[in-house]
């Protein structure tokens, strides 16, 4: 393995003193497709979003909506082939990562952009101690010796509040509980103090009490380091607790974006509204739940027009023929609502009516 020269691997600039005024990460018109035997699966069809330092963007969607594929494209860990990125840009501090060389990209990955995966048990190597796996970040990216790297690992484990870190640094992943393993994943992502963290369903496999611990820790560390965070999840409760803004995805497209408070108060897309109505609430005993009829579409043959039209109870003829672009959402009197957009022909009726 090549040891990267530590001087250029350690980011010289932190987000705070960066002179570029643009966003930390900007995804522009991203398309991802997979070649399969049955045909071309269009997993992501023109996704746009931005994340700033210290900001949390939640990407919400069901399985198959393209939320994880987008994240993998940002990280550059898609298997290509079968995946292909036919068009789009992913700008990190204004620089397009898709046109970068592999070596250049590798320096960013882990050091500046890190990822936390859902299933900590299968993301950690079972035959290597956690200390060794944590230390790998320092050894590979910063050329530290094994001894130095181990000391750093203990420090990191302390920071993510793993009790008796010095004693446990040589333990193997199976000796930790689910919550502790997820803390190790977080520690690994934080190791080189990245500017952006992508967390793909970080708490889905955990119990609620542990989930609360892990989300709290993540939020605390994010504040401390002023990192940008992309939180990918299907849990509307977790999103409400931590996100600043939300992008709702359906069939590879963003169907609605909004600041967190706005989205829950007044959804501007029938899919978002349906999702919000279909979850039982802890503080209310409801009657029958509202259920979105039907199933998420097959990505081999996404419906004509609006992809949500077969499941939508507001669908009209125009929805079956014409594709609705993501348009800015305004108040009834035309006042702008910053950060809000909806991809529905009838957003006015959905939000105001």
């Amino acid at each position, binding site marked *: 393995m090549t040891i990267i020269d530590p001087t250029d691997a350690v980011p010289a600039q932190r987000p705070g003193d960066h002179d570029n005024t643009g966003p930390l990460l900007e995804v522009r018109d991203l398309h991802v497709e997979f070649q399969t035997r049955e045909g071309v699966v269009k997993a992501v069809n023109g996704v746009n979003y931005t994340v700033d330092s210290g900001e949390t963007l939640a990407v919400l969607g069901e399985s198959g909506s393209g939320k994880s594929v987008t994240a993998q494209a940002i990280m550059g860990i898609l298997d290509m082939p079968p995946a292909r990125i036919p068009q789009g840009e992913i700008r990190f501090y204004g620089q397009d990562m898709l046109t970068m060389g592999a070596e250049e990209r590798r320096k960013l990955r882990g050091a500046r952009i890190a990822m936390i995966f859902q299933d900590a048990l299968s993301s950690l190597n079972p035959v290597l101690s956690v200390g060794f796996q944590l230390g790998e970040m320092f050894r590979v990216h910063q050329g530290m010796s094994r001894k130095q790297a181990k000391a750093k690992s203990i420090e990191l484990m302390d920071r993510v509040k793993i009790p008796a870190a010095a004693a446990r640094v040589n333990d193997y992943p199976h000796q930790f509980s689910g919550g502790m393993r997820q803390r190790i994943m977080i520690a690994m992502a934080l190791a080189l103090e990245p500017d952006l963290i992508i967390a793909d369903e970080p708490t889905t496999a955990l119990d*609620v009490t542990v989930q*609360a*611990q892990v989300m709290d820790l993540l939020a605390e560390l994010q504040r401390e380091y002023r990192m940008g965070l992309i939180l990918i999840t299907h849990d509307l409760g977790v999103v409400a607790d931590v996100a600043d803004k939300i992008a709702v995805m359906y069939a590879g497209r963003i169907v609605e974006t909004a600041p967190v408070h706005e989205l829950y108060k007044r959804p501007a897309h029938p899919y978002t509204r349906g999702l919000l109505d279909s979850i*039982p609430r802890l503080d209310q005993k409801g009657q*029958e739940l509202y259920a979105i009829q039907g199933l998420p579409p097959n990505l081999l043959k996404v419906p004509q027009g609006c992809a949500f039209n077969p499941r939508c109870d507001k669908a009209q003829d125009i929805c079956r023929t014409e594709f609705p672009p993501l348009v800015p959402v305004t108040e009834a009197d035309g006042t702008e609502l910053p950060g809000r957009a909806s991809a529905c022909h009838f957003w006015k009726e959905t939000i105001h009516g």
Partner: protein
Amino acid sequence: MADPTKADEPQDAMPNVSDVEVAEVHSEEEAVAALDANVERGEPILQVRNLVKHFPLTQGIVIKRQIGAVKAVDGVSFDLHQGETLGIVGESGCGKSTVAKLLMSLETPTAGEVFYKGQDITRLSGRALKAVRRNIQMIFQDPYTSLNPRMTVGDIIGEPFDIHPEVAPKGDRRRKVKDLLDVVGLNPEYINRYPHQFSGGQRQRIGIARGLALNPEIIICDEPVSALDVSVQAQVINLMARLQDEFNLSYIFIAHDLSIVRHISDRVGVMYLGKMAEVGTDEQIYEYPTHPYTQALLSAVPVPDPEAREHRDRIILTGDVPSPANPPSGCRFRTRCWKAQDKCAQEEPLLAIPERFKGSDTPAAHESACHFAEVKDVVHAA
């Protein structure tokens, strides 16, 4: 599908009358009638008393010595009434799935009894057990692994009829399976398809149809919707609620999602490390929880309302659930409890209505296993 309480019981449903309280009843028909009458009088259909399951831990290869036991379930008692849903919640490893297996007689309990209509099913075997099992069915968590990929949907749903041929005569089975598909909202034409041709929500419907095939009275649902997408979850929950009304089913609904449990349950039991911490109606548990563990569990659930995040009083527990092989002395929750005192380490709190609420009419007067039980509203924003 007929009402399961109707007298379509097979004649051999109750052969083992000798070790039951109704031993003076002589013929089997009378025994069945007596048991049904008990339920009609408002007695619980299922009574669980001090159920214990310890899994031995052994050491050595040739000469195995028992060096301890994983106390997965350690003294659990509850009742289930006809047409009622009892939710059981708790973290992973608290023993809720082991309870399900014990109720199904898939595991033999170390101690304790499970009375189905007054008859202890833990002592049954052979024909008698088979007859009881017909009335207690199960829906599993993972619709991807609980359906055999090499069997068609018709074979999967029809398989219970092979084991209990008295329910449907051979020539009638295909029609019955089609009826069942219709009942769970699937197209009866799909009878010859294989599980991989269905989505997760549809597969779970197949699992439900299989559970309904024998007209059971009790269905044990072990995390039936946790593997499904949000929009599909609501469909399956609504289906289960509708089937309950239609067939007068009793559900034991095991889940870790507290919001869903509240939605579907009439009564809720909270488990911690093999014991019930608190049992009550959904209102008593969610609005007036008195056990600190219930309070912590409820306050940790993220509420889909960003307004609430600043106002809610969250209790974040430290640490993990202790090992069930070596549970703490006294109250098992004391190692993570912020109220714990010396008494908690020495004296095990019993599951009972707390002394201070006894005789009062408040919703706080429900069973809670805590020495220092007090009401704390954690669900609503302050």
